[in-house]
């Protein structure tokens, strides 16, 4: 029974969603739409689990003075500050919650995003080495694309921007589509394995 019930639920829900895609007739349309709404409700309700876990982990860290416990009060204060301002004043524009979000949270996110510029440069410096013919080809392509992206590329030779456009739209697109087709095959295979109960490791080892 421990195996049968979850497998039956998985099979039923999976078949409903597949049939919902191909059959517009009721009740599949109704069931498909409602299953998706139910999932969103469950996921929204599950946020409380995450919040409880967050508070539990960090308060325990503070109480037991574990390694790096000094960062935990920052997390808890930040969480409570946003929660209290949102509950008391609301989340509308020009309220304290909105002020904190626009002036603290958003800039911090932008700061993290800006790190990408430096990380791309360091990763490119490591990756673009002419150690074999494949790496040399990669290096040449990257060089052409970067030159084609800036005005000086066209000043050096007016065909460089065209080469960049060709590289991005033909070989690059072909490669990306190949990856996507392979991934789509994997998605279908994995989904069918789970729906038909062939893949059971997600049940937590109850093979």
């Amino acid at each position, binding site marked *: 029974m421990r195996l049968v019930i979850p497998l039956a639920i998985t099979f039923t829900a999976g078949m409903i969603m597949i049939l919902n895609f191909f059959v*517009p*007739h009721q009740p599949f349309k109704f069931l498909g739409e409602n299953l998706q709404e139910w999932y969103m409700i469950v996921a929204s309700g599950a946020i*409380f689990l995450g919040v409880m876990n967050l508070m539990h982990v960090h308060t325990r860290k503070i109480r037991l003075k574990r390694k790096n416990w000094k960062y935990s009060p920052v997390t808890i204060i930040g969480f409570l500050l946003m929660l209290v301002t949102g509950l008391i004043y609301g989340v509308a524009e020009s309220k304290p919650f909105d002020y904190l979000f626009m002036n603290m949270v958003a800039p911090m996110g932008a700061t*993290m995003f800006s790190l990408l510029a430096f990380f791309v440069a360091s*990763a490119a410096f490591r990756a673009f080495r002419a150690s074999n013919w494949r790496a040399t080809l990669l290096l040449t392509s990257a060089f052409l694309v970067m030159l084609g992206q800036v005005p000086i590329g066209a000043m050096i030779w007016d065909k460089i921007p065209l080469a960049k456009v060709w590289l991005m739209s033909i070989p690059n697109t072909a490669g990306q589509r190949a990856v996507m087709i392979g991934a789509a095959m994997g998605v279908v295979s994995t989904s069918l394995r789970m729906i038909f109960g062939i893949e059971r*490791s997600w049940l937590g080892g109850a093979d």
Partner: protein
Amino acid sequence: MKNLSAFMIFLLLFAAGATLADSTDPPESVVTEAAEELEVISAVGLEASDTEEDAGGSVSLTWQMETVGSDPDSLGVIRSGPEGEELITTLPEGTVMYTDQTVDNGTEYSYWIVSYSGGYVQASSEVAAAIPSAQWIYRGRIGMLIILSLMAGVIIYFIESGKKGKELFIREIAGLAAVDDAVGRATEMGKPVLYIPGIMDMDDIQTIASMVILGRVARKTAEYGSALLVPTSRSVVMSVAQEVVKEGYIQVGRPDAYNKENIQYLTDDQFGYAAGVDGIMVREKPAAIFLLGTFYAESLILAETGRSVGAIQIAGTAMPSQIPFFVAACDYTLIGEELFAASAYLSREPKLLGSLKGQDAAKLFFMILIVVGVVSATIGDFWSPLKSVAEFLRRLVTVN
């Protein structure tokens, strides 16, 4: 006195005359407009039909507007049905279509469009009728249904072959073969293993595949005695990960080593999660990092930080835009379908290996289809039978 009276009478007559002149002579422009007034245009060619490929309860109306005449202020859609005649909606002038979704299947409804001007009905179209009904299949998706059924059939065939004990060859996937080495390295160095399951929720198939691999990694870390840290970006993923890791530890007989606090929720925010995970990497200095699941812009931030702490990194995602970053920054990368093959590869179960072979066979079928399609589309401009083949293939793989 006599002069004053005459002057007063003169003034009165002058004022009266001026007043009469204003009220009796209409402005020339009003007379001109009245003479040039045009008839208000009506809707023509009204067609009513059952809305295609739906669950019923819907009628689609299309029409055109006459071109000679003055535009109406608005249009009204009148419906005649079992409840009698009613105005069901008012539309702005210039509208040429409308879908009525307040009807019952199997009942005939008649429609006509009226043109309003100055608040009154000035023109009316002819009547059109339709009976709404529900359809059983989306005709534009039949091609996809055929392809999906073929794929499922091929996968099930190879699964059955695997069950019967047929030897199935799977090429080596370097990233998966290195999982044991990575966990062993962490054990030798006395450092934890960090597992990052991506930033999407459990409704994403990559996250599900990641959870499957997490179960196997959890068993390995339990066997070797290493700590396993799993920071998650979603509450549901946290709950699933806790159960998967716990079961993994129980399966190898180490339930005492399971620590629930090692699987923690950080935040739903993309870069907040990246910052939190980077902090864990820098403070805990894991010896092995697994980045398996759906990633977006934060992928390189995580991978580069992991590299900076000296960890061996095994990454896997089906996001084509993030794979190059992982290839550049990580030691091993599972590209696209290799992430979904991980479960079968690590377990070596015949049923799962059979599904991998079926997946490969389906891919071969698509490769042949692409070559045939490209050749047909290229030569089809010069030879019409091939053009028909190209058109057929295009309709087969198009989803409406």
